[in-house]
């Protein structure tokens, strides 16, 4: 076990953890951040995605020691029910989730996409989200919701 300093959602946190522990379990169990989900533990599905210094990474295969003091954003850092992010608002307006289990990965990747492309086409979104799995079949609404969020950001 070791003391590990993490910069999560703009706050410095210190956790006592085996440094080989994947970041996912530290976020969920030590810091009570349940946005990232365990889907496969293999980096295949994307349900565990967090944003690390602007890049979407799979927290289930990222040892916590490799991300010390680096800026991590989880779904909790995006917005809340009281103050939703424009993406979260757009997803509600498009009713773009069924079970919602994969939505963490979809929203975090959508955030990274919009940060570098403020007006993505449907093809851009499909390409950016292709590595994320959704089993309920919310894909079409997700595409519309991301475009809606882009439009609302352009207006703001």
């Amino acid at each position, binding site marked *: 076990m070791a003391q590990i300093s993490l910069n999560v959602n703009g706050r410095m946190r210190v956790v006592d953890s085996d440094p080989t522990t994947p970041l996912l379990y530290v976020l969920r169990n030590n810091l009570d951040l349940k946005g990232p989900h365990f889907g496969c533990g293999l980096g295949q599905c994307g349900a565990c995605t967090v944003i690390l210094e602007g890049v979407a990474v799979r927290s289930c295969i990222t040892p916590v020691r490799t991300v010390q003091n680096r800026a991590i954003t989880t779904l909790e850092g995006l917005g809340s029910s009281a103050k939703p992010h424009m993406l979260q608002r757009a997803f509600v307006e498009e009713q773009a989730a069924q079970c919602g289990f994969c939505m963490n990965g979809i929203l975090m990747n959508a955030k990274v996409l919009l940060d570098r492309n403020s007006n993505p086409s449907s093809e851009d979104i499909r390409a950016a989200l*292709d590595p994320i799995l959704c089993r309920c079949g919310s894909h079409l609404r997700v595409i519309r919701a991301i475009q809606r969020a882009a439009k609302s950001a352009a207006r703001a």
Partner: protein
Amino acid sequence: MKTHSISRRELLKNSGALVVTFGLFGPSARALAQQVAGLPIPPGSDPYNNPDYLDPTSLDSWLAVMQDGSVTVFTGKVDLGTGVETALAQIAADELDVRFDQIHMAMGDTAKTVDQGRTAGSNTIMRAGPQLRHAAAAGRAELLKLAAARLEAPSEQLVVVEGVVSVGGSPARKVSYGELLGGKRFNLKVTAKGIQAGLDLAPEARVKNYKEYKVVGKPVPRVDLLPKLTAEFQYTPDFHLPGMLHGRVVRPATVLSKPASVDESSIHGIPGMVKVVQDGSFVGVVAETEWAAIQAARALKVTWSAPAAKMPATVGEVDAYLTNTKSFVDTVIADKGNADAAISTASRTFEATYHWPFQNHGMMGPSCAVADCRGDKVTIWTGSQGPFTTRDRVASMLGVPKRNVEVNFVEGSGCYGRLTSDDAAEDAVLMSRAVGKPVRVQWMRADEHVWEPKGPQQLMTARAAVDAQGHITAWDFIGRTFPWTEAQGTPQLGERQIGQKSTAPLPGNPVGGGAIEQIYDFDSQKVVGSYVDWPQDEPTPLRTNPLRSPGEPAGFFASESFVDEIAAALRVDAVQFRLQHLTSNPRAAEVLLAAAKQAGWKEHSSTTETAIGPKASGRGVALAIRGGTLIAAVAEVEVDRTTGSVTVKRMTIAHDCGLIINPDGLKFQIEGNVIQGTSRALMEEVKFDAAGVKSLDWNSYPVIRFKDVPEVDIVLINRPENPALGAGEPSIVPIPGAIANAIFDAVGVRLREVPFTPQRLLKALNAKGSSSA
């Protein structure tokens, strides 16, 4: 939102009971009612005068009026991510005359709700909907009675708006539901007969005419989405208790056998290890941290004894077994005229056999549950589709009364039938019992891919005779498949590992395509579902349970491909050919025509000529029925003849499920079914050999991704004068057939085996090329 703010004790303190019986309408609802009414009630499962169950005849078991005038509706049904929480609340709001946001749903806790049967079979809106509607109507009538006394006015002069009762013409004379009954019990008996989906509740309550609905029929946004999108929603794996430990299961990749030896020194030194749990042939590890449990489960060296049974080595071996093994039950679904004689004497006949593989449910989040065993009592938190089934199985496993087991529903990831078998709950109970502390168990990805019960392999053979006018006169259809090895009332994985024997096989998959007799007019027809025993002396990874619209995507893939084959051979347009056989089923014809019109279908006879150039486009149609819901699909595909790849560009669906409760929620269910159905048709097949299942993860069991998802265009046919039927599954049924028919239209080859992989398509194209050369 799930409202757990009211405890059962508070509820009992507060509530008045409302029980309503619902009428059954329409042939499919009647058929279902007869089916469920005819089922024997298992010993100990009769909920009347039974301390293991909440009293269905007490209105307080169903409704509780809060002091703020809101109403909590208690239901044994659960929301699996499909939006039924919102839809059921719409139904209750209308009958109670309250705003939608004044209804709170409390779902799926065994100590707080009546068992309305598992959330499965697309029967929640169809069966629980009328149950709750009648309960709500009985509640409203009682509230009006109380208001009449309070306001000193006859009930018939009273009007209710948003839960406030006033005297017509004298709006100042008013009283709210909260003032009338907030925090108090109804103390009212209602009539209740039957159990679960067959529960007939409060028939004496007068329900509204559909013309009076204000909330039903509206695209009310779902109550669960914002918290799900902001990480404020609690999913099953998010549930935690103080002092909770983490467990992982250790199972072999092939047939379950006994652990001949467990070498605990192999995990020596993993910090936070608590215990290796061994109980019969069950092996699990419990640790203080999740990561320690994962490492221990990976590292633990277990030597398994030689298994009692073996796995089949190939898909072909399973097909041969299905073909050559005597069935243990043959369900005759239709037998009209003498199809066999008609076909043997006809001048023109057709015959084809179709294959469907084992497929996974593929939950995004693998099985998970938390259990807390305290002496002979246990509390479980799980995403089970049947909290009462989970309770009964665990009570049986532990040998305790059902009332000693409390199961609380906490929604997990979408499960599509998989969680009709709640394996993780049993695993968590076994581990919690062994360590005397609450344990959270989550399966790893390979645990789930290998050990989830699968949708079984199916073989379908169809024969038909056609007369000189080009009309199908006789139809003979046999589907062969396996029963579910995991069904309600049979011991499941954990139970069997600690020594409970499995019971006799139960017929599982309704033979898909059987319902075709409800669509087309054939003079003679015979449709039979043959179930071949699938013995599992010890459970194998090819265990089976219901997978979304069980059996029917396969059955209708076969029957709708076969209809299409005949139409093409006769050089008749596929839509026109179907219409010629729908003269006595105008509702099905309307659905078919609606899809064709929306898709801009142009009459043509499907080509058997291969197009020029590498890419070819095609369109195909399929029609299906499930539980009375009618669905037509038009698929548009692009086939690459050089690579063999198939892309579904667009799917047009027309859908008739009677009264529509929430049109946006309905459309979303259809979109999901189209996308999942496309995935199952194009790429999904469990790989296995004699050494076990080889589909261990999302690379070895690929599913559809964003780039390949088709556009979906939907026509909803609303029939508000008809009962609301199911919609969670039906629209997956025609998808594989429509795609197969579109592939034929594009390149002139018939794929009779799912999935339609590039290898299969190239092989078919090559065979066609060499036969026409």
